[in-house]
């Protein structure tokens, strides 16, 4: 059965409502224009709107399907008060042609109630939300269907009536959840919102009287906003590993850009320099009116004193860290690494990737006395025409990449089994072993090849593979 999922203001005026059968609606209003509901597109649009709202506050939580919570604690002074901030939000939303309702209150619950059932644009005074939501209907408390129906049946029409019931009987009659909702609305219980990005006190924002679009202007404002945030970071002796700059365009699109640092830092010039080469990827459109910068992974940094005795030796901060930053931001984080030992017998698992300047791991270093190849192929390559004197002997001749190699000297086998304790016990087979041989051909080429499987297993005959070359 097809039902209406949403109606606009005109349709609502004609008496249509969401949840109505489509056939009934068509009977009422024959000229009704309908569109297929697209829940995914709606969710995406809500997410985009949440990103746009970052210009007002870094803490934006989505309230699917059609709401947004903005935590404006500590940011409203930038607009000169909550009312002015709300006015700015209303103007901008209206300019974008979005139908909306909004309200400001101490708690998310009260704001939700006032937005949906109160007067549009209400700004509740601190602590004054109780009086404002008292005359609203009980649905304003975000109750679930059965509870709301029960309250309706009991003839309770106002939140004030619910507020006058003693807590014990209230919880018994309508359930714990309903009481929680009431407490959340009145601020007696805190409510956790899942913000789109975690609330972050390290946030700086610059708004411009005239929209900017010239590349050099963008470079300058990114330096300015970085200086603004870094001054605060420096004051508190902190540095951040990640900075995310966001350019808010006139048409409501937010263009983010982020950089990472190898060591936490608060050097505004360096950060601006890392942003600079990537600013050209930002399309300013008709202009950029607001730029925001968020610092993430903020940690205290101890200002290290320059040591006098090693004046000639370069410190990591001045040489290596900027290099690693330049490379990771240009190539991507997964393209610059330091090999770190991982305790595993399986060759391809024995090397992990660590951040270039991360402290060394606890894992035991590789055993230097067992020969290992200089180059290890990510996927072992098949070796054909292997000849061996007896099954467990090293090969005397093999063909790899179309070339026949005659083995002059060989070492092995070194048996490496699967890590059965890591997988599902049913998948473990005795035949899941590799016998590695280190061989040298007549020309001196040194190879690392292995035989997978065991002889005498008709289902899976052993197969030879080339896993690496020593050179």
């Amino acid at each position: 059965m097809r039902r209406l999922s949403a109606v606009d203001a005109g349709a609502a005026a004609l008496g249509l409502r969401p949840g109505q059968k489509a056939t009934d609606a068509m009977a009422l209003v024959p000229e009704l224009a309908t569109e297929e509901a697209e829940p995914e597109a709606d969710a995406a649009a809500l997410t985009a709107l949440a990103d746009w709202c970052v210009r007002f506050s870094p803490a934006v939580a989505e309230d699917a399907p059609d709401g947004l919570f903005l935590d404006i604690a500590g940011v409203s002074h930038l607009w000169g008060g909550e009312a002015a901030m709300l006015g700015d939000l209303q103007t901008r939303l209206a300019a974008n042609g979005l139908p909306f309702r909004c309200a400001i209150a101490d708690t998310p619950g009260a704001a939700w109630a006032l937005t949906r059932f109160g007067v549009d644009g209400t700004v509740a005074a601190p602590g004054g939300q109780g009086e404002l939501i008292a005359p609203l209907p009980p649905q304003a408390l975000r109750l679930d269907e059965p509870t709301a129906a029960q309250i309706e049946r009991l003839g309770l029409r106002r939140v004030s009536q619910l507020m006058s019931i003693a807590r014990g009987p209230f919880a018994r009659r309508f359930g714990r959840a309903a009481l929680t909702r009431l407490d959340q609305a009145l601020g007696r219980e805190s409510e956790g919102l899942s913000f789109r990005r975690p609330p972050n006190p390290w946030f700086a924002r610059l708004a411009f009287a005239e929209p900017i679009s010239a590349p050099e202007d963008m470079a300058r404002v990114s330096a300015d906003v970085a200086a603004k945030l870094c001054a605060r970071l420096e004051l508190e002796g902190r540095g951040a590993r990640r900075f995310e700059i966001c350019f808010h365009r006139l048409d409501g699109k937010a263009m983010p850009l982020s950089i990472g640092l190898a060591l936490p830092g608060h050097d505004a010039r360096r950060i601006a320099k890392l942003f600079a080469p990537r600013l050209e990827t930002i399309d300013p459109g008709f202009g950029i009116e607001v730029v925001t910068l968020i610092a993430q992974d903020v940690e205290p940094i101890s200002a290290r004193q320059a040591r006098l005795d090693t004046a000639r030796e370069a410190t990591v901060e001045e040489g290596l860290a900027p290099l690693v930053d330049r490379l990771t931001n240009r190539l991507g984080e997964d393209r610059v690494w330091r090999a770190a030992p991982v305790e595993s017998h399986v060759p391809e698992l024995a090397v992990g990737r660590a951040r270039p300047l991360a402290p060394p791991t606890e894992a035991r270093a590789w055993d230097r006395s067992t020969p290992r190849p200089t180059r290890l192929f990510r996927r072992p390559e098949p070796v054909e025409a292997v000849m061996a004197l007896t099954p467990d002997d090293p090969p005397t001749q093999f063909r790899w990449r179309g070339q026949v190699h005659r083995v002059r000297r060989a070492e092995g086998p070194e048996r490496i089994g699967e890590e059965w304790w890591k997988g599902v016990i049913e998948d473990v087979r005795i035949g899941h072993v590799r016998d590695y041989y280190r061989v040298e051909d007549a020309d001196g080429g040194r190879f690392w090849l292995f035989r997978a499987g065991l002889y005498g297993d008709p289902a899976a005959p052993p197969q030879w593979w080339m896993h690496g070359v020593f050179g």
Partner: protein
Amino acid sequence: MSDFRGQPSSLAAVRAKIAAIEAHARADCGVLTFGDGRIDGCLPGGGLPLGRWHEIGGVGMEVETAAAPAAFTALMAAPLARQGEVVWVFRRDDLWAPGLAGLGFPPERLIQVCARDEAEALSVMEDALATVGVAAVVGEVEAADLTAGRRLQLACEKRGSTGFLIRRRPFGGNPRREATGSAAATRWRVASAPSEPPPDEFGLGAPRFSVALERCRGGRTGAWLMEAAQAYDLEDTHGTHPLRLVAELGDRQLAPTLPLRRAG
């Protein structure tokens, strides 16, 4: 100019003059000696010049896998890795740190960078060479033309770090025409050579390489058989060069220089 060849002192003077012109702004960064006169004698200043860049190529299939050049380069750069970081730039990510550790190269001083293309690999090399705290940079690229080579040289001179350029076609195919000229200080060609374990031992001996010095600015060319004597050995032998010269190779030597015949 009556008898130019007959006066070694004036020849040396001219050589010194040319060297002074070539290195007009270049600080002398010293050399890394191999510890064997037979090879150090061929190199200008008695060792591998630092603050320059060196080209290392492979033979046959090694043009693609470049395992022997990589092992040889790691052995040459191992003494430098004790002074600072080593940045290794490549396009194909198959360098394996446990292998380098076995050869005696400290893997904790190695930063690996995977570039997307040739130009990026060269520019990362350049960037790393000009950085404080980087002792050596190894790059695996197909070829560096004269401009790229000159840029690498300028980057080397900034901080006195040493570059090693391994010529490699990472993804097979026909090798590109080798660049004729090059700004490299030295050019080497390295191939694996059969190892010789002690007579009473079983298996493989220490890795051996047949090494040809094909080009050397201000020095002579030569060919040698070298051995990584300390490979897979837990004993710490600081001080000695990890490569040991086993023998001079005659067959790779260029045609013997004949005395010039006087014209007229």
